[in-house]
């Protein structure tokens, strides 16, 4: 029996039973699949190792750039202090409330703007102006209005995070394929039916993209407002205090916690996204 001249390419599944290749190849294939994971871990580890070496030998200033081992120790110290849960929970509450309220406002306003043409056209210049405004600048104002408590942070978070949801809801509800609308019209669908069966499903991927952005924005809003209030609790305040005490390793430990918080947020949003928008084409992209 003549062997086939063309070898199957790496991506093609092979019949395991008739695979004439020795197990070493299988191992290499497995390695090939996990290669980028390995490289990614190596990249991170070598970066931290170089940093550690440079800081330990005082080639870079160890007070300002503490070695990663010191930051890790500081992290472990930090999460066991009695004041840490208070700061953490306050920030979590601010982000959660700001995100919930802000995205609800964004959704409702976006839907209103998408459905009522006159409102959309009237408010269009204001939407552009608001988009161009760097909204963190409103934080001191909200502190004047709502005081030093969590309310002013929630207000800042809302002001920053409602906007991506609004714009994405508006665009998603509007950019519907012409043919789909024609089909529904030919079927004599009501406005409500068109909204539920075509516009909303079309908008969902946009809305979720907006929600993801707005979650990060809510974190920005809460943290910036915390920077501005001297007497408040919160992770942003904690970073600032440690920084003033020149305890950079502890400040970095808080930064790590905020990153983890952000990562958890993204992963949760992504999981919900996958459940809700199960039909999305996920090929391509990074």
């Amino acid at each position, binding site marked *: 029996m003549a062997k086939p001249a063309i070898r199957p390419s790496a991506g093609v599944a092979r019949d395991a039973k008739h695979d004439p290749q020795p197990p070493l190849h299988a191992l290499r294939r497995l390695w090939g699949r996990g*290669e*980028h994971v390995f*490289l*990614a871990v190596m*990249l*991170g580890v070598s970066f931290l190792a170089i940093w550690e070496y440079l800081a330990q030998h005082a080639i870079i200033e160890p007070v*300002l*750039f503490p070695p990663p081992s010191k930051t890790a120790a500081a992290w472990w110290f930090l999460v066991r202090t009695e004041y840490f849960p208070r700061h953490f929970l306050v920030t979590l509450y601010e982000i959660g409330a700001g995100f919930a309220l802000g995205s609800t406002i964004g959704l409702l306003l976006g839907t209103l703007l998408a459905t009522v*043409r*006159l409102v*959309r*056209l*009237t*408010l*269009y*210049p*204001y939407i552009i*102006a608001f*988009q*161009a*405004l*760097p909204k*963190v*600048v409103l*934080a*001191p*104002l909200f*502190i*004047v*209005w709502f005081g030093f408590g969590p309310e002013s942070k929630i207000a800042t978070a809302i002001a920053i995070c409602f906007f991506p949801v609004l714009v994405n809801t*508006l*665009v998603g509800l*509007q*950019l519907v394929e012409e043919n789909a609308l024609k089909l529904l019209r030919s079927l004599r669908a009501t406005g409500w039916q068109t909204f539920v069966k075509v516009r909303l499903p079309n908008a969902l991927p946009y809305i979720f993209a907006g929600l993801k952005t707005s979650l*990060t924005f809510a*974190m*920005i809003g809460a*943290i*910036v407002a915390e*920077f*501005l209030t001297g007497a408040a609790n919160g*992770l*942003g305040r904690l*970073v*600032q205090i440690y*920084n003033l005490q*020149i305890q*950079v390793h502890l*400040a*970095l430990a*808080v*930064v790590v916690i*905020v*990153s983890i918080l*952000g*990562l958890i947020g*993204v992963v949760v949003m992504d999981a919900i996204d996958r459940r809700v928008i199960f039909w999305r084409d996920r090929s*391509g*992209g*990074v």
Partner: protein
Amino acid sequence: MRVSADVPLRQDELETLRGRPQVSGFAALRVHVRDKLHWYLAVLLFVAFLTAWQMIAAYGLIHEIILPSPLAVAKVFPEVVGRWLFVQHLTATLVAIFGGFLLGGGIGFGLGALFALSERWRKVLYPYVLGFQATPRVILAPLMIAWFGFGPASKIAQATIGCFFPIFLNTLIGLSLVEDNAFKLMRSLRASRWQTFRLLRFPQALPTIFAGVKVSLTFATIGVIVAEFIATEYGLGYELTRYHVEIAIPQMYAVIIIVGMVGLALYFTIEWIDHRVVFWRQEDVERSKLR
């Protein structure tokens, strides 16, 4: 107006070409009102908003410390703007925004282009991209002050890390997603790697890259203002916190309005550049659907 003849014209384009059907008198007014109503309403809304604000403040419904009247804000405006020091604050902020924008954008574009070349490195980088994206960069602002001092360097650094990422990511995505057929055509013409990049990948990535540029300009502004909130000697963010501490509320409103105007100016500048550079973008079609 579209140039190509084989694309059917939209209704409004047809009307522009042929001229509107002639109407006169009351009917003309009605058409005019129908087409321009939203502009009148927008202006009306603005006037009504200012009037309501003025009345609420004038009758003392809300304490003037919380909500000073628009007239009070207008009165302090010359005092806020008309000082040499203010020009210094404004320049400090603008220089920091542009410095961080150029630095972060340059690094972002360079690294994005580098990593777009190799699929393996894209996969390797992915977890770090995800982690960096999920972290709100403003949390690093106090550390930037510790690392780079109270001068403009810390502001520029904060703006750099703020706007590095959107340009990096969009360059990476834009350069990676190339239409297969176009790629095959380039190969069949024996185009070199550089030619493929210059003639195909780069132009195709430009709209995506510019979308990143727009986002990153916003992030640069946020970064600079937040850094100025925390600790610097100059800048609009510094002005704002100074008035905040002095409880000079009308002055705060004035500074916020100025920052808004700076934001608008930056926004329209980048939109204009975008339209000049990415002149073939299909956005006008999308815009027309938004009406």
